[in-house]
């Protein structure tokens, strides 16, 4: 009886009409950062919504990075615009580096399909590596960074440049003139009187 009942009952599987999923894109490559204990840093996760509508993604982290990273719960992506989401990383001052100097995990950006009988989700996954380094390594690293990106663009005003060139010359002339006066060279004085 029960079997017949079940046989004749129809399970109503109507998969709701959901819009085609948006195309989601992300910047390729791992997100990596080097920090010493007690330091904070920021990782930038590049996301692109490649369709003509605004899209909201839910963000979450998984893995060993979870206690050390804070991320927004969601991000709204404008159509066709590359958006960088800031992921704040904080290594506590009492972090024991003997536990390992590489903290790994992933960050996920989820675009949920329309809720209903069927939900087709698209998700992006981004690998994250936090390298915990000694304090002296950080100083060395900063030094390299500070000296490594000097470009050829000068902001010194043109007038200042001109003065720098001309001033020594004027001073040299004045010096010679004073010496000549001190020597009491009348001929020199007379020359100017003419």
């Amino acid at each position: 009886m029960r079997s017949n009942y079940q046989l004749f009952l129809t399970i109503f599987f109507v998969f709701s009409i959901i819009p085609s999923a948006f195309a989601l894109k992300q910047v390729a490559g791992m997100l990596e950062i080097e920090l010493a204990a007690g330091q904070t840093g920021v990782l930038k996760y590049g996301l692109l919504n490649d369709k003509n509508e605004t899209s909201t993604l839910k963000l979450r982290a998984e893995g060993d990075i979870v206690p050390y990273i804070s991320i927004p719960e969601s991000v709204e992506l404008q159509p066709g615009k590359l958006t960088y989401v800031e992921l704040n990383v904080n290594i506590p001052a009492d972090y024991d580096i003997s536990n390992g100097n590489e903290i790994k995990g992933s960050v996920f950006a989820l675009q949920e399909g329309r809720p209903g009988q069927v939900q087709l989700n698209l998700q992006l996954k981004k690998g994250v590596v936090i390298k915990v380094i000694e304090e002296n390594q950080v100083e060395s690293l900063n030094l390299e960074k500070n000296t490594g990106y000097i470009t050829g663009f000068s902001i010194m005003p043109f007038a200042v440049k001109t003065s720098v060139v001309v001033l020594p010359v004027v001073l040299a002339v004045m010096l010679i003139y004073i010496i000549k006066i001190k020597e009491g060279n009348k001929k020199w004085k007379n020359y100017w009187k003419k």
Partner: protein
Amino acid sequence: MEKLLEKIAIGIMVLAIASPVVLAVETHTDSVIATANVVALCGVEASPDIVFGDLVPSQTSTPATVTVTNDGSSNTLSSDVTVEGTPWNDGTHTMAIGQTQYSEDSGTTWAALTGSPVTIFGGVISAASSKPIDFEVTIPGNQPVGLYSQTITFTLSCDTTPPQV
């Protein structure tokens, strides 16, 4: 000797007066370095919708095809697309995730959908290449009537940066 000094002093003075003029008219060539960081993108798109329709217990649905596209910008990008699902649920009853099966070879072989991500698309793949994935569901013979739903999630990762050309 004095004459010579005289001439040198006068020459320097003339130079001092003339130099601002000369410097002012010279071509000013400060350079500005413009940088543009062209980043490699990887992306995923899945379409169209899946519609199995009405089913009775013990029935297997007609396969529904979802095309997963590697929507990246680089031909040398290594990326993976995984698929995973949740159990069917009507608010009261459930049905196992594995009742849904998927096929990567147009229905020749089928694998049960799981709650853990399984790679369906991986390695170095060409930009804009796509792959059809067939899905079907089989209703158990004793499954209570209900309006069941399931979530299927496609996840893309591309942690390998493409080589610089």
